């Protein structure tokens, strides 16, 4: 742990230095990015900017001194202490998973980084078999992945099909039963689909769908309708109605208006729905764990939870490797599109 505290203190000091440099540069009227980078050179940055001639004549020259008052320095220090510590807390589980996925032993890993990192666990997942200690372990990761991919893809296609048409009608037309329909959808979207678990199980049992991953698509699609209809409906109401009307005057019928005008204009929200629907099956545990029994038919979420929860299958490194492979693409996607996604979620809540 010694190295961790040393790193933390170094980072705090470094960032404080960077911030002070930046503050001076700002007071002198320099551009924003370069002072931030130069500030990362310890000891050098502050003097560099103190000596540098300001690019613009500052109206209040005396103020660079205010950067060096004790209150400001302590405040900066405190600020960066918080940020660095929080950053470490955020990163620890991430580093731990990466470290564990490289661990050659199947037991519970007590090091954050293994002494002899190996890619064995990834190979184990793809080849389905590997030796841990004296034991030979097997798994069906490839089939889980394939099942989940199929389910996710079909869910995405069907959800978009079912949702867009319905949302279009609700957003644009007045008809009998609209109000009741909207209220029903509203009530339905509040419920996690697994409250109907017994019924879904019985339904699958009655129609012979138990133990078939593709049957999950029906449930996911139906479950997606209420919330996403609200979402797209809210978006479509922001698309000016005049567009429809002018198209109608030019002789377009209702379907043509939908395909030629509404669809192209709502590409952003449709792709949001498509992406979220594609991701849902990767992370759903409850439903597949209840209706699918055979190991090679599991979805990923079920499979990897068994790696840490099922006495006969316990394999923490394999769990970590699998978790990494699922989480990495999704995480990157989320980071890149964070703004877009958060707006999407907020829109769902505010516009209803």
């Amino acid at each position: 742990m010694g190295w961790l505290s040393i790193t933390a203190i170094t980072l705090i000091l470094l960032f404080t230095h960077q911030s002070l440099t930046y503050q001076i540069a700002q007071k002198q009227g320099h551009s924003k990015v370069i002072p931030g980078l130069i500030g990362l050179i310890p000891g050098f940055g502050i003097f560099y900017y103190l000596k540098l001639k300001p690019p613009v004549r500052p109206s209040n020259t005396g103020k660079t001194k205010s950067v060096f008052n004790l209150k400001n320095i302590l405040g900066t220090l405190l600020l960066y202490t918080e940020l660095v510590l929080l950053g470490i807390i955020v990163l620890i589980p991430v580093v731990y998973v990466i470290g564990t996925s490289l661990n050659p032993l199947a037991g519970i890993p007590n090091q954050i980084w293994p002494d002899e990192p190996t890619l064995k666990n990834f190979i184990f997942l793809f080849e389905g078999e590997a030796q841990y200690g004296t034991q030979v372990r097997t798994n069906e990761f490839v089939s889980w992945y394939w099942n989940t991919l199929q389910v996710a893809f079909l869910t995405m296609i069907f959800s978009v099909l079912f949702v867009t048409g319905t949302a279009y009608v609700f957003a644009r037309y007045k008809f009998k039963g609209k109000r009741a329909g909207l209220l029903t959808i509203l009530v339905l979207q509040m419920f996690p689909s697994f409250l109907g678990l017994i019924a879904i199980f019985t339904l699958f049992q009655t129609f012979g769908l138990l133990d078939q991953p593709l049957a999950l698509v029906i449930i996911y699609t139906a479950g997606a309708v209420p919330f996403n209809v609200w979402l797209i409906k809210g978006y479509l109401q922001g698309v000016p109605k005049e567009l429809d009307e002018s198209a109608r005057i030019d002789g377009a019928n209702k379907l043509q208006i939908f395909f030629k005008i509404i669809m192209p204009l709502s590409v952003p929200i449709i792709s949001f729905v498509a992406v979220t629907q594609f991701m849902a099956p990767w992370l759903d545990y409850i439903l597949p764990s209840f209706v699918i029994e055979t190991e090679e038919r599991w979805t990923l979420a079920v499979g990897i939870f068994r790696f840490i929860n099922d006495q006969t299958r316990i394999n923490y490194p394999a769990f970590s490797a699998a978790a990494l492979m699922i989480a990495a693409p999704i995480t990157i996607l989320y980071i890149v599109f964070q703004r877009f996604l958060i707006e999407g979620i907020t829109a769902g809540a505010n516009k209803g």
Partner: protein
Amino acid sequence: MLIIDETRNLRTNGFEVLLEYDVFKAFQESIIGGLGGRDNYNTDAYNKMLVQLMFRFDETIYESYAEVFLNPFHENAGFFVKGLWGVITLGVTPSRTVTEHYELTFFIPDGFSRRGVELQGNFSQQLLLRGIISNLLLVYFIGIFIWNIRDAFKTSKIIEETKKVPDQVQYFKDVYENAFEYIVLMPALFLVTFISVMPILFGMLVAFTNYDAQHIPPNNLFTWVGLENFRVIFTLNEQGGLPFGTQFFRVFSWTLIWAFASTFTVFFGGFIQAVILANNRVVFRKIWRSLLILPWAIPALISQMVFNVMFRDRGWVNQTLSNIGVYDWLLERGMLGRSFADAGTGLDRLLYFGEENIQWISNEANPWFVRIFIIVLNIWLGFPFFMALMTGVMTSIDRSLYEAASIDGATGFQQFRFITMPLVLFATSPLLIMTFAGNFNNFGVIYFITQGGPGGDFTTAFAGQTDILISWIYKLTTDANVRWYSMASVFSLLIFLIIGTISAWNFTRTRAFKEEM
């Protein structure tokens, strides 16, 4: 030699043996199929044949079975009638095993053993499900029927007025134009009715039955019990020896505490972090933001499972704490190293961490330690979303507000208190209620980190110390040793009422509702 094997019964649906079974074919199957040797004799077929013979010999025995197993509603009624009958009765015939053919022992040659032949009873749950489906379909058909009549009426009026029969093509065009909305809605409506509404109805109905471990069809049918399950809960009673009443209120109050505490901590945690991040001193704000938003971007399911591994009794966290000497410090203060009984009173008990290790998620003696720990851990999972959201709101606040305030002499804190805070809280409060509803049903945090534990056996009706309603429902439904569907449904219904009311109330306050309704 006669081998008597009465332990394994042969399962048939009653219909087959009672009516359709062919004695000669059975004889062929049982004997001739076994010509290759005694091991190949088909005992099942032979026993079925014996039952058949028995029924032919003794009319009264046949009658006693036929009376219950050849139920006219179950066997012969049409789709809708059978559906209605199923919902009303939930089946009438449990499975029964025919053993009367044992009297025909002299017919059992060497190499065959006698075996009970089970006549399969009704599956109450499937009858209920089919019943709901058929009734929903019936509603659809009645709707179409009414529409037909109205349409015929309208057409007859047109004919009366114009003395002309409308031509087919024009008619369908009109229908398409007028009913376009309904035609587009049909597929989604159908899907939602049968996949979303039907299970909810089913769940609600099961709450009024005794579908539990002691009533698993077809051996033991379940039946309507009215408000009995609700009475058990609200009079703090037991059912089947399990204390559902008292446990419900324990779990329910913890669910409420959990929902409030986790929402509050996450909301204000995110707010504080957003304020810190908005400070002018922070350089490269976007990079810091992307780093701190990681817990939101990583799928929660994965991080919850990772926490489960990290915080086990002999997990990495404990190992590390022990290595850096935190254990010694805790041992000195008695927070570790002795049993709960010796841990003293009051605060000492609350600060009891465990005996050998810090029991983050398994401290059965001191569940409040685990509960508080879960709430704290949940901040990690939840704060980034609010942080990102509020950062967005803060950047969108009009700068001129701050300028005006500083001209009027407001200090930095006053600007924050009277401009930033009200605006941010106002903009994000609708999400607060949504988050509350989400946390109320936050299955993942509880199930993947603690599995509802510590504790949770039959003395607490299988509810662990950190179980919230939804994870308890999950356990009652999916655990093969528990299977208390009726109570699970009762709790679902209660969640439905609570969350439904909150969300509906929240929704009536939104702009969308006021515009739409």
